[in-house]
């Protein structure tokens, strides 16, 4: 029985393909994975390594929080170890997890499927990006053995040029990771430009693709500047080039300018794909067409453009002139406009929808709440006078965790739960999914909301010792971190369990109208058995629940039987 016949038999478009030929069993053996050019397998491999980095970075976070239970010296780690620990936590989470997170894993898997294409434009380059990631990660992590870096993830000069830890190795690793990121972005831009099917105009693309597109543009345009900055840092340390050394006529603040010229846009590399995920989920789980499609799409591009113009807000207190600070402050406030456009469009999508509180939707609601707080506290920090008080306090730490974690990681989890049945052909436990989402939400807020309060009272970030008056906050924050840890263990357990014992997933478990739901779960090697028809990606109301299939089928056009 072919797949098409089983589809005609009422099992939905393609149905479940676990027992049939699919991308997971198309070829067998470890070599068929390591040398694959299939974007789906590369996406899954990225998922594995990215989640492993997340685990490692999370371990460091828990250790840091455990030390901070007490204000004084700790038997757990010495002050130097603490410095290395928060540096590694930051570098691993930023460069190995959050930046590649959504585009490289979910994006790689979903992007060609959403386009109805067979693969990305350059499959071999895609595999090369993956191995560049692996090589860069090994170099960066190798510095843990050869002299773990203690500069903080920003590698500010002149400390990074004088510390005796292995900055060169870490920075070289990140340089290589940067190439991985550039090639992924390049691949996605070309794929979106050249492989869109007939009928899918720019404004009929799913919004996730707009998010990925905006991200890819930033990856292409900002990452090379990080590349040259890191090369200069390496040259400074290895050859004494003197370009950041004031004793030789160099300028250490130039490093900060270069670094943030990349690293601020990088924040949007992290958040834009997350916003893309939310745009998909909010429509599907409100069972309603997305509201304000073109505004959401164009605001992605607006954010991408503005992201290049705000780096100076990291240097408000670094001797920048008042005029530049004012301009950067103004531009920073401008970013709030497209971000708010998105949030209000999502809210309007939910308004009068029939909201289905499945696990992915719980993450959407978390996202709206946490990103709201994260975004608005960004305005506090973008205001010049307030920033003088708040900079380098726990307020900043809380702010960017609300954006990075409350925004990107929560959306990543939402997207992971949304596409999980498509990726592996099995459903996870909905009950435990909701428990996990709840634990993450509670744990996260306990950890980081406390830090807003502590920071506004002036607690400095990154310090090993702290004043006893902050002890209660630190304890509460650490308890939150433990709850968060438990939440992730729960998620890991039920997701792994679902791989082995999960109920086979239908082709379209959530009633999404984008093309990836029109192939089997998991998809076949060539993605589609027959070229899917391109329609409105948010016509979710055309899909209706069918108990016999255990998933959604297309509502029958007048005069035809359902499920065809």
């Amino acid at each position, binding site marked *: 029985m072919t797949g098409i016949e089983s589809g005609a038999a009422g099992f939905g478009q393609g149905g479940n393909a676990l027992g049939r030929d699919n991308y997971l069993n198309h070829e067998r053996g470890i070599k068929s994975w390591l040398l694959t050019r299939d974007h789906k397998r590369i996406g899954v491999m990225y998922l594995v390594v990215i989640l492993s980095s997340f685990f490692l970075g999370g371990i460091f976070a828990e250790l840091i929080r455990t030390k901070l239970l007490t204000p004084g010296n700790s038997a757990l780690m010495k002050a130097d170890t603490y410095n290395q620990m928060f540096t590694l936590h930051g570098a691993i989470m930023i460069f190995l997890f959050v930046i590649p997170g959504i585009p490289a894993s979910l994006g790689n898997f979903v992007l*060609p499927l959403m386009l109805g*294409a*067979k*693969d*990305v*434009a*350059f*499959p071999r*380059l895609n595999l090369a990006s993956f191995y560049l990631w692996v090589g860069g990660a090994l170099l960066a992590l190798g510095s843990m053995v050869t002299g773990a870096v203690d500069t903080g993830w920003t590698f500010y000069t002149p400390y990074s040029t004088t510390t005796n830890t292995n900055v060169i190795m870490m920075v070289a690793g990140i340089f290589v990771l940067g190439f991985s990121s*550039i090639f992924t972005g*390049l*691949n996605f*831009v*070309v794929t979106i*430009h*050249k*492989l869109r099917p007939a009928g899918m105009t720019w404004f009929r693309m799913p919004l996730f693709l707009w998010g990925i597109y905006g991200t890819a543009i930033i990856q*292409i*345009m*900002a*990452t*090379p*500047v990080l*590349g*040259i*900055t890191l*090369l*200069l840092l390496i*040259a*400074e340390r290895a*050859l*004494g*080039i*003197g*370009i950041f*050394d*004031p004793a*030789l*006529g*160099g*300028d*250490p*603040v*130039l490093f900060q*300018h*270069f670094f943030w010229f990349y690293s601020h846009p990088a924040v949007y590399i992290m958040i834009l794909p997350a916003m893309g995920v939310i745009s998909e989920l909010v429509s599907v789980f409100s069972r309603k067409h997305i509201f304000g499609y073109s505004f959401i799409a164009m605001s992605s591009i607006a954010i991408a453009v503005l992201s290049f113009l705000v780096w*100076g807000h990291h*240097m408000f207190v*670094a*001797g*920048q*002139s008042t*005029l*530049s600070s004012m301009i950067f402050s103004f531009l920073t406030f401008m970013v709030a406009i497209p971000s708010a456009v998105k949030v209000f469009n999502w809210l309007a999508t939910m308004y009068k929808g029939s909201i289905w509180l499945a696990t992915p939707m719980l993450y959407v609601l978390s996202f709206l709440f946490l990103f709201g707080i994260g975004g608005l506290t960004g305005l506090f920090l973008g205001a010049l006078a307030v920033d003088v008080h708040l900079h380098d306090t726990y307020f900043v730490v809380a702010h960017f965790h609300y954006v990075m974690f409350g925004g990107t990681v929560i959306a990543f989890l939402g997207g992971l739960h949304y596409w999980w049945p498509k990726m592996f052909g099995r459903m996870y436990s909905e009950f435990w999914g909701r428990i996990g989402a709840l634990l993450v939400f509670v744990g996260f807020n306990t950890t980081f909301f406390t830090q807003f309060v502590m920071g506004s009272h002036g607690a400095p970030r990154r310090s090993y010792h702290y004043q006893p008056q902050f002890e209660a906050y630190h304890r509460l924050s650490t308890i939150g971190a433990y709850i968060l840890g438990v939440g992730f263990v729960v998620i890991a357990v039920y997701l792994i369990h679902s791989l082995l014992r999960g109920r086979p997933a239908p082709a379209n478990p959530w009633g999404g109208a984008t093309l990836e739901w029109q192939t089997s779960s998991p998809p076949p090697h*060539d993605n589609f058995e027959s070229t899917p028809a391109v329609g409105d990606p948010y016509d979710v109301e055309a899909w209706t629940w069918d108990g016999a299939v255990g998933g959604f089928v297309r509502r029958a056009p007048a005069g035809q039987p359902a499920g065809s």
Partner: protein
Amino acid sequence: MAAGATREGSVAGTHAHHVAHHFDNAEQQFESGKLGMWIFLATEILLFGGLFCAYAVYRSNHPEVFVYAHRFLDTTLGAVNTAVLICSSFTMALAVRAAQLGRRRQLLGLLGTTIALAACFLGIKGVEYEQKWKEGLLWGAHFHAKLAPSPPALPQTLPPVPAAAGEERSLIPPAAIGPAGLARPGRPTVAEGSEGPPHDVQVFFAVYFLMTGLHGIHVIVGMALLSWMMVRAGRGEFGPAYVTPVDLTGLYWHLVDLIWIFLFPLLYLIR
């Protein structure tokens, strides 16, 4: 469209294996490759952009250093090198044409000439580097040249500096307080009209070696790519139906050339 169809038809059977399974036709594949390469070239420009930015910052912070120090560079060798690279771009463009016309021997010859010109460029660059090395005109911490008190008495090995040195000044007015946010002007520079070398001459050489060094690495990468193209051309892989790799290598090579065309006046011809 009809042209595309006939083109595809004519290659069916012999070159169809060049079209990967996820592309509809050779046209789409070629356009994708070309777009990808242009984007990659944009990232290359941004990579160099960081150095151009550093150049701008340091030149505006230390204008007198740039005016003083650039005279240690050999303009003649720089100009010859510029000509060499422009010629190599020309032979590269001819090579792409030869590939399109399916003239294998001509293609091999032109690729070989391009590689030879690239090697010539690197050789001349090596001569220049050696000169700097001998005189200690190096970057940052390694700068140990003994600068004569006034420009006319430069190290003997250098050609005499034009007598006009005294009035030779940058047309860019020195920034009064330096671009805000960047470094303060550092140590006081030499007073107007006084004799003697300015402070921080090594800044110029740091910028010089970084920019030409990174460019040199790109030339070496280009030579490797060109050699690979020669191997593939030798196997007869290229013809009217399939020239993408030669075309893309050509684009890369022209970019390498173009960057040098910016480096040459910025470093050698400062006024």
